[in-house]
């Protein structure tokens, strides 16, 4: 393999605690656990019922991950029911975690939809939605590899220095990022856009299927003002090893491009 994955024992012992949140219909939790573990995190899958019953608390963690899936079947709207459950039962814990403890949050796919519907993204207004992830322009679910460009200048604190074009898989039916003009302007002004769908050269695109859902401004992932919350539709946890890419056999110099996101979160959290 082009890139050996070394298990850094010292990091494992002092690596940050990662909570991978699970509930009915979440189905990308195992690969998310694996991604954080490979990156050196000490990872635990926690069911929301355990947090609601006070059997566990976000206070025990430095990183909170909301994985992909179909929480509660994505009934009514994707991520909606889980977002309301977080707002109803865990608002204080999340506020303590995000603003008090200054923990890091990652939401991928359904997790991103939950963050947006809870209001945590883009502006940290829990309980009040400012943007949405709505039906793909194509009208259906789609699974394909796409190119993404990381914005050179973005507000995300843990991805500093990461740049260029990456190849990730998308797998969703409701991923079109949409916000009113003023909100969109503010998101752009504050450099909250972290990832955009692009052509292979890194030019943002509205062209289907390079932009798989018709997202405004080709937005694929955003952060909040603090830069500690990242939400994205594509799946970095599906590219932790070279061999997860369909074309690793024809691209010998390929690197597993999803791994750096997890490594940087783990490194950032362990230096906090």
């Amino acid at each position, binding site marked *: 393999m082009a890139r050996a994955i070394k298990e850094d024992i010292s990091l494992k012992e002092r690596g940050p605690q990662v909570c991978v949140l699970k509930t009915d219909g979440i189905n*990308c939790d195992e*690969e998310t656990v694996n991604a954080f573990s490979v990156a050196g995190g000490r990872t635990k899958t926690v069911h929301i019922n355990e947090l609601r019953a006070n059997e566990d608390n976000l206070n025990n963690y430095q990183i909170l991950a909301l994985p992909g899936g179909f929480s509660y*079947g994505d*009934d009514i709207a994707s991520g909606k029911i889980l977002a309301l459950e977080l707002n*109803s039962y865990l608002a204080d814990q999340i506020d303590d975690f995000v603003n008090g403890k200054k923990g890091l949050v990652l939401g991928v796919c359904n997790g991103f939809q939950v963050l947006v519907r809870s209001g945590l993204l883009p502006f940290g207004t829990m309980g009040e939605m400012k943007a949405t992830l709505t039906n793909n322009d194509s*009208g259906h679910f789609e699974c*394909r590899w796409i190119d993404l460009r990381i914005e050179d200048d973005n507000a995300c604190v843990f991805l500093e220095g990461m740049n260029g074009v990456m190849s990730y898989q998308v797998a969703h039916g409701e991923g079109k990022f949409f916000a009113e003009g003023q909100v969109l302007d503010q998101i752009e002004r504050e450099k909250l856009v972290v990832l955009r769908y692009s052509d292979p050269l890194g030019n943002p695109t509205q062209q289907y299927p390079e932009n798989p859902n018709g997202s405004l401004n080709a937005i694929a992932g955003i952060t909040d003002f603090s830069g500690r919350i990242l939400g994205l539709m594509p799946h970095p946890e599906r590219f932790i090893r070279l061999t997860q890419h369909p074309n690793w056999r024809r691209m010998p110099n390929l690197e597993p491009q999803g791994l750096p996101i997890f490594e940087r979160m783990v490194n950032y959290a362990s230096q906090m």
Partner: protein
Amino acid sequence: MAIHEIRVGYIGQDTKGQEVASEAQRTIGLSGLEKVRTAKVYRLEGATDEDALRLAQTLLAEPIDQIFTIDQPLITDTLQIVEVAYQLGVMNPEADSIMKSAKDLGINLTAADSSTEYGFYGTVDQEEVAQVVNRLLVNKIVEQVVYEKPQTLIIKGEPGIVEIIPIRSASADEMAALSKDKLFLSDQEMKVIQSHCITLGRDPYDGELETIAARWSEHCGHKTFRAKVIVDGVEKPPLFTRISETAKKYFGNEVVSAFDDNSGVMKFYDGQAICGKVETHNSPSAIEPYGGAMTGSGGVFRDILGTGQGAKIVISTDMFCFAPPDLDPSKLPEGTLHPDYLQRRVVAGVRDYGNRMGIPTNNGSVHYHEDFRAKPTVIVGSYGIIPENRAQKGQPEIGDLVVIIGGRTGRDGIHGATFSSGEMTERTINVNSSAVQIGNAIEEKRMADAIIEARDKDLIRAITDCGAAGFSSAVGEMGENTGVVVDIEKAPLKYPGLSPWEIWLSESQERMVASIDPSKINEFLNVCKKYNAEATVIGHFDDSNKLTVKYGDQMVVDLDYDFLKNGLPQRTMNAHWEKSESDEAFIEMPIDWIDTFKKVLSHGNVASKEPIVRQYDHGVQGTNVLPPFGGEKFDGPNDAVVITPILGKPYGMIVAHGINPILNRIDPYWGSVWATAEAMANYVAVGGDPDEAVLVNNYIWPFPDEDAMGSLDLSVDAVVDCMNALERPVISGKDSLSSTYRGKDGQVIKIPPVLCMSVFGRIPDIEKTVTSDIKKENSSLYLVGALDRGMAGSTYYDVNGLVGDEVPKIDLKVLPAVLRGVHEAIKSGEVLACHDVSEGGIISAISEMAFGGDCGVELSLSAQMQRPDLFLFNETAGTFVVEVENDEIANNLFGTLPYIRLGKTTQAKTINVKVGEDDLFTVPTDELKQAWQEPLRRIFH
């Protein structure tokens, strides 16, 4: 309290409306329809005005891009509005979510429902709207148009009573009537039941009769496969015996369990085992394709979950046969659905269940033939991983508790087991509508999460799924070596009003039954609770050797296992198959080569299935290392899927399949050999080791009259011969013998017989695998394997309107060496690309490799070749097109096998074929790709 209606619509783009409008234009040709607008309708019972407003604002309508109304219409600018809802009693999975989320917000609703309103715009009259509604929006089996607001959403009902059926005094006519729409048993079987009751001295309860009928149904009892077979006057062992006895010879050390659990299991690495199961869901899919396909997937997933003490599901596969989507609607038999609709809804069903469960759907195929118009073939497979020490089928111990897990029981799916064993008639769609169910993938996901955790904590003794015949078969089979007593009044119901026998026989989805040691019951129930999976103790296993079912104090079933297990008389089936007289087709060389080639590539059986595959999440779980499509533009098709079910380990699990209904119909023996060779070739083409493979066979056959029995007998012979040649066993399988349609005018359509052969296995290192896309410019292409001249049933013949007589006969003496040779070559790392030859022939395989490589090829055929068309379009399975650097390497790799050089790869994106020095044709690769991609893009846009 009154019902509040909240309507929600989009401010801007309405993708659902757009979809309906474009489908109406495409399939019905309504050019006057300008647009369709949709509104979701939520009905809330038990909400105050204040609650309704809060729910609308917070939960039901999105603040950014949606608007809502409360108790007011939302679509006001057209009069053509139609509301479509599930029928009363068909559970809408969304209702639970609305109730749950309302509760999270502190609002307790008494009931909730959701439906969709469609507004039609443009110059369309009522009749045209009705056409759209009937053909695209409403499936009357489960849905209905809502004409007036319901008074209540609560379903009320009194439990039915236990009836006694006076069978002892029944006349022959009465017995026949009882069997016809309800029990689907033969006269002989009905008589056995009658005389048993006479011996017992009492008439049976309705539940008992239903239990026996289900247990003895073709679906559960596999009577045909266990029957004595008389072929042209000569007795042969039962079909199942022939398969299992041959298979046993090749189990070796790696087969963990075969034929006796819900799936077949083989050893993997690191103390793990892998398992596979393939099922059909033809009858339900024929009348309600979305629900039928969903519950087909859900059922086969539960087979994996119900293997050993619970296996984790890691792969989903789907193989479909339909009539061509452009079939003239006037050719549709009464009571059947149009293939365009069927195909789209079946794909949507597989998509919505697999994606929600988080199971990658990453292997499959679609086949078309006009005779599938009477009934489609819908095959769904599933594969799993399980620790080896939990992989043996569990056996309940006396005193263990009977626990039911998962969804609640409703009236859905009554008579599925007996129904799927009957032939399809024009009455099927009306009489058996209760046999169709809607799936709820999240219900199953909750249950799956709970079961895997409980397995890892060693809390499960035995587990099985509730499939056909529901509790009756699951509890009934689990208790058959001991005895079991259950009280089905304890089973949680979706709504009241079910008769005891209905609860016992209901095929409501997403339910499983486990045998739990009483000392572990609390921990087990706690695990279920953590995952929001409902679990209920309904009885216990005892040493009575009886099946006892009560409803409170009332007796529902009181049967000796001896009669249930051994009472069914063995059938004797006569078999005789005769090849229909037909001359070998004569075909001229193509005049326009490029036109012919494009026709082959755009034939449904060859055309790219990418638009379907993209709707399935094939990357979830992060295990995929060789996906369905790859190459420069991610559009080159691969032959099989490779996953690493243990993340971070190099161990590979490979799954592939082979199927060709048309060849089976022309020649059941050689068609079945073809399917098996194709399955193995697909598996080997990516790097699979033929000596580490196991097979799963599924027979989807017409109703077994003498002729169908004859072809089935030949197909089984073929599978036995293939096992002997390959020295590999079948370890799981299923039969579905109801592919016959009888119309009331006497019309009989025998659907083409389908043998679907699936294969799965293991390799120690996934780096030793290869894809089909051409990797290098100026490398060489070879054909490896022995071609047969048979062209009957080929795509090339079909596009010329011919069928033919001689199908490709695969040489079983040569095949194993070819498979091993190609495997060794791939293992050596010298093979750059490999693709097996199948529908569309050698030239189609080469083109697909060029599509993936985004390049071209120059093929040089021998100057002596008289009929290059019969070579290029030859479809002999078990042959491979292989890319390696040069002749020397090819000779080293394939020197002992039949192989020939085909040509070389080029950067120039054209497909060029020469015979000797003469150019036969040259065509841009992209032009061919366009022809190959277009057919399914048109449907799945």
